[in-house]
């Protein structure tokens, strides 16, 4: 058999002075990296299969383990990077499309890190969030152009019928991650946390497990090209419905849940046979135009008695502003835009790392375009794709977003170490797997607690930043790009972002 030219990505360093051969690492590694030799009463490691998930390192009771990036011994070459070589070897051996998980990990500019926030000094007092209320509650849905009020009545009566809204106690929601791509316990953690906090999680395109109907008031359900698990009860159970057109990690292509992850429970939820691959087509085969999209939006509104906002999720691509304008005109109440760093459970690596545009630029352009066309109020803007911190969120709001979706950040809170192997179904952290031996590792009570803690922490930070700017409601910051300044960006980038350079005054 031809020798594989692949080389280990990680190095497992075991401090023999500390190792007590307790075998915790052996039991915790789903990739069989650690092996116990009973005769020698010693644990050995074979690093070929190590994915660098750090599970063993975290659980080792004596801290005897260290897993580090293995330096490949080849002569450094700026053009032929180690990653390129590895992919070449792999494809020469397999002849296949390389899969990966999570979001784009290439070194493209991250605009959040080039945007700085303003603060109050002397002429406009800042606000102390511990002493004064700061409102970060957010409503998602179509806003009215005029409010017709009958002032003759006592008290006055609002005559305009308001469009259905989602009420968020924080401007943060959990992105679409299907039960199937993530485990029952992971989904449960998200749903329980969303309920506790007063926000929403998203079912993804995997249908809704019967246990989660209980959390329907805090779940946005997705209707995607595969239509998995979609039925009237599913739409009725949810707080809102999202039509998924695209995903930041894989714009233009469909979804693929490997059969390994289609457990009996997942099969019931998706209404597909156990062990069969769940393939979502690249396009919706009933949507080839904005008009087709409008028909689906209307059909969903009809099916839900016009009681629920309908969201449309698209990936940030070159013409995103025009597309978003069409989506709003098609009747979407919420437009969700997923940038190039958006995560996935499985995508071709070449797509993930090369297709789409950064969300910051897409957001600025979409907000700008909708305003210019006078239709910004007709839909809320939710952005997704690589939101890492409360400062990313507040910058997004200032750039024009109504709220953000977080996916990767939520999974990291649950224990994800970004090994990017979600597609293998062997997640050692019990998140992106359906293996009952692994799913137990995520206790949803702990998961919920950690997610709630994260959102509490970010809320507090958002309030601190708002207070510093002298703004007492998030609503007042929304789309106010005067609160942002750019550093280290070209004039063109600043223009696209609509942000002045740091140092420029009003």
């Amino acid at each position: 058999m031809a020798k594989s030219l692949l080389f280990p990505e990680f190095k497992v360093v075991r401090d023999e002075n500390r190792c007590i051969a307790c075998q915790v690492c052996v039991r915790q590694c789903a990739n069989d990296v650690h092996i116990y030799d009973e005769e020698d009463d010693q644990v050995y490691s074979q690093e070929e299969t190590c994915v660098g998930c750090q599970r063993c390192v975290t659980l080792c009771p004596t801290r005897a383990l260290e897993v580090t990036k293995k330096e490949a011994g080849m002569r450094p070459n700026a053009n032929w990077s180690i990653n390129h070589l590895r992919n070449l070897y792999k494809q020469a051996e397999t002849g296949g499309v390389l899969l990966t998980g999570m979001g784009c990990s290439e070194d493209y500019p991250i605009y959040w890190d080039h945007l700085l926030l303003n603060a109050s000094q002397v002429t406009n007092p800042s606000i102390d969030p511990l002493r004064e209320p700061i409102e970060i509650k957010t409503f998602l849905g179509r806003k009215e152009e005029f409010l017709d009020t009958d002032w003759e009545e006592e008290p006055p009566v609002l005559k305009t019928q308001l469009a259905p809204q989602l009420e968020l106690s924080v401007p943060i929601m959990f992105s679409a991650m299907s039960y199937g791509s993530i485990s029952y316990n992971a989904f449960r953690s998200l749903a329980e946390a969303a309920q506790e906090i007063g926000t929403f999680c998203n079912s993804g395109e995997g249908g809704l497990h019967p246990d989660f109907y209980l959390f329907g008031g805090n779940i946005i359900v997705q209707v995607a090209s595969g239509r998995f698990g979609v039925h009237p009860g599913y739409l009725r159970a949810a707080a809102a419905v999202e039509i998924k057109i695209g995903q930041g990690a894989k714009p233009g292509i469909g979804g693929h849940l490997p059969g390994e992850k289609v457990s009996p429970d997942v099969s019931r939820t998706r209404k597909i046979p156990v062990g069969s691959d769940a393939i979502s087509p690249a396009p919706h085969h009933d949507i080839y135009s904005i008009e087709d999209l409008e028909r689906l939006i209307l059909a969903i509104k009809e099916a839900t008695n016009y009681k629920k906002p309908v969201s449309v999720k698209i990936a940030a691509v070159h013409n995103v502003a025009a597309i978003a304008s069409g989506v709003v005109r098609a009747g979407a109440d919420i437009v969700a835009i997923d940038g190039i760093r958006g995560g996935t459970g499985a995508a071709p690596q070449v797509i993930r790392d090369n297709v789409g545009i950064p969300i910051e630029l897409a957001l600025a352009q979409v907000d700008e375009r909708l305003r210019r066309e006078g239709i910004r109020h007709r839909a809320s803007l939710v952005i997704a794709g690589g939101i890492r911190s409360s400062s990313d969120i507040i910058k997004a709001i200032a750039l024009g977003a109504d709220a953000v979706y977080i996916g990767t950040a939520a999974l990291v809170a649950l224990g994800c170490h970004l090994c990017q192997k979600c597609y293998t179904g062997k997640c050692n952290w019990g998140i992106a797997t359906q293996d009952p031996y692994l799913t137990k590792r995520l206790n949803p009570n702990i998961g919920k607690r950690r997610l709630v803690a994260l959102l509490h922490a970010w809320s507090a930070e958002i309030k601190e930043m708002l207070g510093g700017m002298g703004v007492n409601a998030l609503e007042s910051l929304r789309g106010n790009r005067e609160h942002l300044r750019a550093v280290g960006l070209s004039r063109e980038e600043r223009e696209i972002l609509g942000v002045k350079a740091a140092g420029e005054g009003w």
Partner: protein
Amino acid sequence: MKRIRIHEEYCIGCRLCEINCLVKHSRSGKIIKAFRGEEPRSLPRVRVEEEGYLSFALQCRHCDDAPCLENCPTGAMYRDEETQAVLCDEDKCIGCWMCIMSCPLGVIQRERKTKKVASKCDLCRGEEIPVCVKNCPNEALAYE
């Protein structure tokens, strides 16, 4: 009384409870020494049982009508007034194994070397939270 509750659906079979229990009941109380320096190695008083995907850590339940206590011919097994834990006074124990024979859960161990002293969960005498509970990374054990 406070008892250790088992949530088997979250037991990940890592056996950190066993490891920490062993260390707690070792002579040095230090993990590396307890494993590599102490001969004989002390015994964990909690045991993880596994079958297929199911696993759980089991230790003495400190039963209200503890049969091990009732059947101990020396009075070595006793109930601690303060914590209500069923403890074994190792000085009185004669290694007759009546307790092992009586325990419906099979959670009493014979000490490897001395073959005299029954080793069983003592709720980590004096600890606010037993070490198996404290060190369970997935909260599959709770002390409540």
